[in-house]
């Protein structure tokens, strides 16, 4: 891969933007929030974050918001990932390795069902923000 310049990056974005307009804008308000505190990093949250992006890329999903937060207080179950979608209950998944990160995209975001054995908690109401805000 040749070294990209910011101009190249701008062009890639414009190309992608054109494709976007043709696509179904479902999942627009979905948020995937990866816990990226010291505990998350130590448990491999960076790999989880990148695996989630890989899977979104592979499926051509460009609208999902992928955000980061600090420690959510579940250091025993890191990496933790919170998923907020408009039509499903919000959930914090625990022990989300790369493979489980991909499953979050495939099963929760795309197929709309929750992932057994990784449900860890529900988001605390004082830190969760509504999608889009």
């Amino acid at each position, binding site marked *: 891969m040749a070294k990209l310049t910011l101009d190249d990056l701008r062009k890639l974005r414009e190309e992608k933007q054109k494709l976007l307009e043709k696509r179904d804008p479902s999942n627009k308000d979905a948020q995937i929030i990866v816990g*990226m505190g010291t505990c998350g990093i130590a448990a491999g949250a960076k790999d989880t974050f990148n695996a989630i992006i890989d899977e979104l890329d592979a499926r051509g999903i460009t609208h999902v918001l992928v955000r980061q937060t600090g420690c959510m207080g579940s250091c025993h179950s890191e990496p933790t990932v919170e998923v907020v979608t408009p039509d499903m209950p919000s959930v914090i998944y625990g022990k989300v390795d790369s493979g489980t990160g991909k499953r979050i995209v495939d099963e929760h975001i795309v197929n709309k069902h929750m992932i057994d054995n990784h449900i860890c908690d529900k988001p605390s109401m004082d830190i969760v923000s509504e999608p889009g805000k």
Partner: protein
Amino acid sequence: MHATVCDIIADLVQNSVEAGASLVELIVQTEPDKMNITVADNGKGMDEATLAKSMDPFYSEAGKHDHRRVGLGLPLLMQTVEASGGKADIRSEPGKGTTVEFNFDTRNIDMPPFGDLSDTALVLMASRGEHELILRRTTPADAYTVRRSELIATLGDLETSGNLILARQYMRSQEQNLIQ
């Protein structure tokens, strides 16, 4: 102990953002047998007593986590550096900011694996906040600089999946170009 040098870097840059820095500079410099890493911020800084306490794994800033009594970021750095023949230097001044500088002898068998800098940088560039983050990377062969503000200005935001994919492609192309 963190698994990779990049994990340490991620932790330190987050410390800077949490310290309210508007500017964080991350310098990753590879020399033939040495690696130098600097994380410099203009955040709130620490006085001498707080700086000394920050090396204690059972110290964490009051108020950050109500019931938590550990703070492992800097202790993990010191442990790794000590175990692998490197050096770390932390300078801080209240109101001015903190600079963490450390190096490794890359020939030392106990040096942790480096990790993936472009994927780490993506995570750091995409973390929330209004701050500027500048990554300066140099090797004997070449160098590059990436600014968070430039990525945001070019892509619009760094949180929609489509933009994150492009930003990662950009970061990887910079890093791969150095290795070749």
